[in-house]
């Protein structure tokens, strides 16, 4: 019902470079000695929603975090292989990580607004970019909050603490914070798992609208949600990419036995 844009589904295994937003090649990742990602190779198409599903602990968050090098925060994280965005390998030494993260936004499972005002939360990234003029900031804040469908609810109390907002509002504020930087790619790590069904629906609608502007990668445990919102779905199991195709195919006639077991809930 929410699939407003009915694409002709591309074959994810035969994407051209122009159609690819993220090109992952032979990605292996270790935390200390623990091998978390095994030889992941996949191409994530532009201006689509791609969801990652899989059991808890299979490495979804780790995979999505390797698209903006957030795994670097953990000591003892090592990786090999390439992650190409716009034809550049972001894993290379020359990559400016801060700049990469402004192009690849991320929203986490739990809303994590800074203990600042609503306005300052949205400005955070822009101020880091050196945007100083009041007008530019005002406009960007308004636009970002409108994009996140939060503007009407907070426009009268922009300078109050972000903590007065409800959980769902906070999550949309975090969306607005990421959108203020106009990212090419938006990474969503279980963005709705802490929210009620209605707010979840709201955010799903938001994603559908954002699709025209950026590529979205979403991690979710909710199979219906993956089927509902995403164009493509990848199934991970114990750090391996088991199956990756358009959502309709994956959920209706999965190729692999493991996938079928998982989506029908036969895994423990």
């Amino acid at each position: 019902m929410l699939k407003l844009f009915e694409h002709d589904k591309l074959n994810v295994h035969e994407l051209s470079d122009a159609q690819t937003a993220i090109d992952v090649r032979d990605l292996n990742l270790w935390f200390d000695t623990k091998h978390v990602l095994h030889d992941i190779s996949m191409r994530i198409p532009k201006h689509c929603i791609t969801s990652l599903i899989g059991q808890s602990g299979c490495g979804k968050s780790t995979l999505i975090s390797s698209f903006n090098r957030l795994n670097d925060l953990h000591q003892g994280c090592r990786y090999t292989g390439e992650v190409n965005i716009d034809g550049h390998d972001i894993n290379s030494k020359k990559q400016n990580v801060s700049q990469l993260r402004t192009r690849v936004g991320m929203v986490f499972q739990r809303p994590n607004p800074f203990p600042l005002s609503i306005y300052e939360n949205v400005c955070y990234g822009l101020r880091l970019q050196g945007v100083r003029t009041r007008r530019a900031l005002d406009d960007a804040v308004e636009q970002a909050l409108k994009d996140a469908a939060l503007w009407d609810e907070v426009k009268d109390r922009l300078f109050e603490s972000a903590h007065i907002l409800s959980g769902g509002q906070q999550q949309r504020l975090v969306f607005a914070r990421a959108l203020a930087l106009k990212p090419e790619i938006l990474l969503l790590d279980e963005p709705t798992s802490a929210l009620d069904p209605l707010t979840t629906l709201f955010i799903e609608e938001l994603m559908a609208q954002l699709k025209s502007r950026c590529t979205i990668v979403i991690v979710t445990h909710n199979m219906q949600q993956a089927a509902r919102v995403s164009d493509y779905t990848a199934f991970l199991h114990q750090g391996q990419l088991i199956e990756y195709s358009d959502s309709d195919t994956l959920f209706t006639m999965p190729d692999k036995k493991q996938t079928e077991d998982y989506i029908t809930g036969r895994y423990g």
Partner: protein
Amino acid sequence: MVEFLRNMTTAAQRQSYAISLSAFLCSMLLLVMISILMLIVVRGAAYFWPEPIEQLVYTSAESGEQKQVYAQTSLHQTAPHKVWQLQYSDARFPFGNKALVNADVLKSRRNAADAASVRLHDGRQLFARPLTVTMPQSHPFSAERFAKAQQHELALSQQIEQIRVQELAAIHIKLAEYDRRNVEKEAPAREKLRAQFAHWHKKILALEEERNAYTLQVAFANQQRYTLPLADIASLEFVSRLSWMEKWGVAFDNIAVFLTESPKQANTAGGVFPALFGTVLMVFLMTIIVTPFGVLAAVYLSEYAPDNGFTAAIRISVSNMAGVPSIVYGVFGLGFFVYTLGGNLDALFFTEQLPAPTFGTPGVFWAALTMAILTLPVVIVATEEGLQRVPDGLKAGSYALGATKAETIMRTILPIASPGIMTGVILAIARAAGEVAPLMLVGAVKFAPNLPVDGEFPYLHLERQFMHLGVLIYDGAFHSQTDAKGAPMMFAACLLLLAVVFVLNIVAVILRTRLRKRYLVG
């Protein structure tokens, strides 16, 4: 024994015993704390409250004669029999003596409404009945006459002071200049100055003689007379005649004097302003020094340092440093800061003053620096705790928006950790304000002629020695071992020190609460 207890009691009983025991110990602790506080508050407040003067007749224990005195009395002990402590004045001890008098030798005791407490500028005090005011003719005492005589005397004193400051000081400066330029002893310019000096000096002597004619005659309880120069008298108060309200007025005056004036009579009378000022200044300087150092060190330890054994060792030594006896820091401050650092500073920048040291001697800056080192571990540990409480989700959120590590620390981690930092600063302030021993080695003195801040360039004299409330109390306690004169002042100073620490703490706690509210994470 343990076995026996276990067999004899049920689990519920054992638990209730444990609870009662811990509650008992807790209440003991509370009791001790309350008694300390009560003692200090009561004895300290007594210093300010005007006690009525009484006329007492008793048989002296030393001579066996009957004595009649004006005195302030306080109960010294009640058991096994009542003993009064008297602070009295008589012809032998006009400015007060102490005596213990058994209740059974006390013949009579009544309020002495006609006796006054006369306080001198140097802090001494005398109880007597004013008889006549000489100005220079003698008149029977009355409050108006006394006030008038005081006015005249004050005018004379001001004249003398003016001549001293304006004329004599100028001559002294010129003479000193001639000395420096090696002008001959018999040069005419010198002769002229000398003549001028003689002229003004004679004038002063004349004025002083005139002033000395202003006196107050008083009588002690046994009718012996005594004469006081009016110039010495600071105040005269008929304490026994005061109403409740007037007593409060006097008490507030006393508090004001205590807070704003310098100590007199070797720190047993007068005020404590220099010590109060010195304490606050030292604590302030220490806070300025210790906060950035402590915070930066904690940031490095918890955010940048690799998570290995070496860091862990550093962390452990930092927390152990908090337990090093403070006198060790004092010795370190003296040996390293004062002699080594200060000595080298002198050799580099103040060569013209040598061999007289400028920074190579104990002073307020070295004291602040020593206290900063002493309190550094407290600040580091508290800050680290604050830093550790910053949720990882927020840090990740900041990084995900393109912030570098430094930006994340500045914009997210430090503000959220600021209540923790404040906690460290509070602890540091309380510790520094209360230390005595190390301070005495690195700059705190019993009496300092000048404040570290004055109107002379560069206004803040970091190399000067300073007075400190704790040192004052220590000094008072030493005095009171031999005679009880300094004791009341010591208690008053204790009360003030408590008040200072309390106020500093309250300020810091309010600030912390605000920060907590502002940077609430949840």
